């Protein structure tokens, strides 16, 4: 299970390995020299811990590692380890993430920069192993930085960037990297693994500074603040989140400079948007069927593009609104739901609509809910979605939300 180097490269340069998204995150943890790791089994998150456990037992990674008795403890253990200065990693999926919810809520205001992986999975009941984004999205209001990636290379790079951003003293907020269950966690791809020396140059040691819980710095952490102070503390957490966009931008620039791989705009990827009439917006591995369908539709003369949102928190509202206002209509594809929300949309559609509201030019926006529970989103689904978006562009009245690929 150790990443297999297919091309041995000289010291200081990259190696290439055929690995899954989960394995890529495990390799990032090793490169980041994470100090404390906790695991608890749930598909698909468990795969990352399987790889990490093997790295530890092979002596390739040096950290304190325990298998907790539940996700609540998994997150509490790393939270406390982080307050004494340790770099930490854990994560979960679906109901496991929800089992830890109490711990997820306390982490941002404690200013604990834990980096975790969510192997996105549908919430029970009824049971489903496949991807939905409602698990990670559940913390969207609480001060977590949330990022979605769509391939193993991006998973590795983003994990390293996440440590750099989360542990930046201006931020000190947790960060969850979302990897779509199965489609990314279990799919192999060729991944370039950066050299340790370069990672060290990019990622400084975690320094808890004046917040370190240690006998030499005898502070009281998380006292009972009540109405006297809670609002000021919330404001400080909010200010950290507001600073996050700038720090993310800095980190991507440095990553490109030191490691040599750049991502352009960190917040969203644009695919064939330059001359597009209409665009689709989505997160995670939806990008694959979307890109294939877009190439096909372009051969048929339809000018369609894709905007793949990476960072959901912080949400690059102004930039995204500016980008989307160029098009004649926008279709937002959600792999999640927000029952009873405005227009019964998905979470992303609601956010994008809100982002566009302040914009002078607001194209028609239609929401689509599809691919729930790991159901595959197929090229014909994307074509159907695009047809509806074209109709909206032509001013045809539309329901504002459509369920796609569902038996009626």
């Amino acid at each position, binding site marked *: 299970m150790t990443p297999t180097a297919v091309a041995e490269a000289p010291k200081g340069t990259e190696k290439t390995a055929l690995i899954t998204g989960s394995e890529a995150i495990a390799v990032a943890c090793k490169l980041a020299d994470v100090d404390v790791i906790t695991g608890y089994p749930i598909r698909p998150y468990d795969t990352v811990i399987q790889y990490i456990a093997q790295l530890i037992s092979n002596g390739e990674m040096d950290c304190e590692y325990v298998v907790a008795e539940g996700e609540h403890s998994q997150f*509490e253990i790393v939270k406390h380890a982080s307050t004494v200065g340790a770099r930490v990693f854990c994560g979960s999926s679906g109901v496991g993430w929800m089992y830890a919810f109490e711990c997820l809520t306390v982490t941002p205001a404690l200013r604990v920069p834990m980096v975790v992986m969510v192997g996105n999975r549908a919430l029970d009941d009824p049971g489903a192993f496949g991807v939905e984004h409602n698990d990670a999205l559940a913390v969207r209001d609480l001060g977590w930085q949330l990022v979605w990636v769509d391939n193993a290379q991006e998973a590795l790079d983003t994990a390293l960037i996440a440590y750099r951003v989360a542990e930046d003293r201006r931020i000190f907020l947790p960060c969850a990297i979302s990897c779509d269950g199965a489609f990314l966690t279990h799919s192999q791809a060729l991944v370039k693994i950066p050299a340790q020396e370069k990672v060290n140059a990019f990622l400084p040691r975690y320094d808890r500074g004046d917040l370190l*819980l240690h006998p030499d710095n005898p502070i009281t952490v998380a006292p*009972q603040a009540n109405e006297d102070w809670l609002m000021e503390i919330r404001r400080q957490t909010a200010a950290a989140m507001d600073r996050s966009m700038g720090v993310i931008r800095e980190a991507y620039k440095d990553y490109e400079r030191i490691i040599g791989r750049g991502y352009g705009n960190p917040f969203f990827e644009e695919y064939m948007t330059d001359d597009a009439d209409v665009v689709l917006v989505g997160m995670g591995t939806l990008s694959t069927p979307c890109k294939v369908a877009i190439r096909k539709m372009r051969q048929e003369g339809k000018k369609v593009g894709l905007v793949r949102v990476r960072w959901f928190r912080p949400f690059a509202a102004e930039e995204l609104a500016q980008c989307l206002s160029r098009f004649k209509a926008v279709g937002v594809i959600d792999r999640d739901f927000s029952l009873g929300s405005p227009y019964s949309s998905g979470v992303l559609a609601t956010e994008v609509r809100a982002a566009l509201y302040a914009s002078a030019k607001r194209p028609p926006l239609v929401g689509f809910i599809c691919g729930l529970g790991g159901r595959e989103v197929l090229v014909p689904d994307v074509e159907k979605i695009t047809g509806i978006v074209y109709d909206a562009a032509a001013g045809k009245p539309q329901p504002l939300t459509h369920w796609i690929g569902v038996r009626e």
Partner: protein
Amino acid sequence: MATIDYPLPKLEPFKGQKKIPLEEFFTSGHRTCQGCESALVMKMMAKAAGPRSIILGSTGCMYVANTTYYSTSWVIPWMHTQLGSSGSAALGTAMGLKALMRKGKMKKEPINVIAFCGDGGGADMGLAAISATLTHPDYNLLILMYDNESYANTDIQLSGSTPYGANTTFSPPGTVKRILHHRWKKNMAGMLAAGHPECKYIATVDMSYGLQAMNCVRKALSIGGPTFIHSLDPCPKGWDYDPMISHELGELAVTTGVWPLYEIENGVLKLYGKTKEIAEGRYKRLPVRDYLLRQGRFAHFIEEDFDYFQNKIDQMWQKWLIPGVIPFRREIDQ
């Protein structure tokens, strides 16, 4: 095999009351009730551990009343942890320190890690996390459960550690049902001792016997690996009595045989104090009603309730495989 490759503190027992240092690490600033024995537990625990310690405290009276923002009573580093998280808090802190010391990222030195919880946080909600932590031989830590026999901070609700029949806000005696709470108190220390054979130290304490209790804390911190202490703390508000008699009630809990004092050290059970005298026949247990009648929470008891309670305590002393610790008998001894 366990690898404790960071140093253990050397904490010799205090050899008498006069040898206890004057310096306090839990001081003014707290807002507990008058006569709160749990606050005394905090003070003695901190004193026993000394300044090179990190204390984690789960939600409850000893969080809410002790750490009002800007008036913390803790001189040593202190951090809140969630209600059911004492086990995970201790484990995570110890793991962090160990990782950093082992990897040369922090100076190697003994740092005591203590997580405390109430009976609600420990015996109910946090039981699984405490149990898991006690199976990790690689980390030095102490979990101390201060047992005021209710969810006190939320206004005295019954927990799995509330004694039979007690009047709590969730179990008030009524016109039809005199006794709404008829579960027997969990045998927490005995359960943890039986369930975690690798755990080197588990003890029960009572702050009416402060010196012994402090020495139990010192032993727990210096023996290596995860350890557990269960203290019984009279609570004037929840037990409904005059704060003047807190210590007296603490003593009565032991002298009536309701609260046995013992240490289990490296697999050896040692009774101590009056409990030892009771077990050796040198002291005759007082009737439990002497203890119960002093507390308003049992004011609704009638004869049959006292008898039931007394009978259960007698059974514990006469029928348990190990009185106060192991609550069953062997078939062969019948």
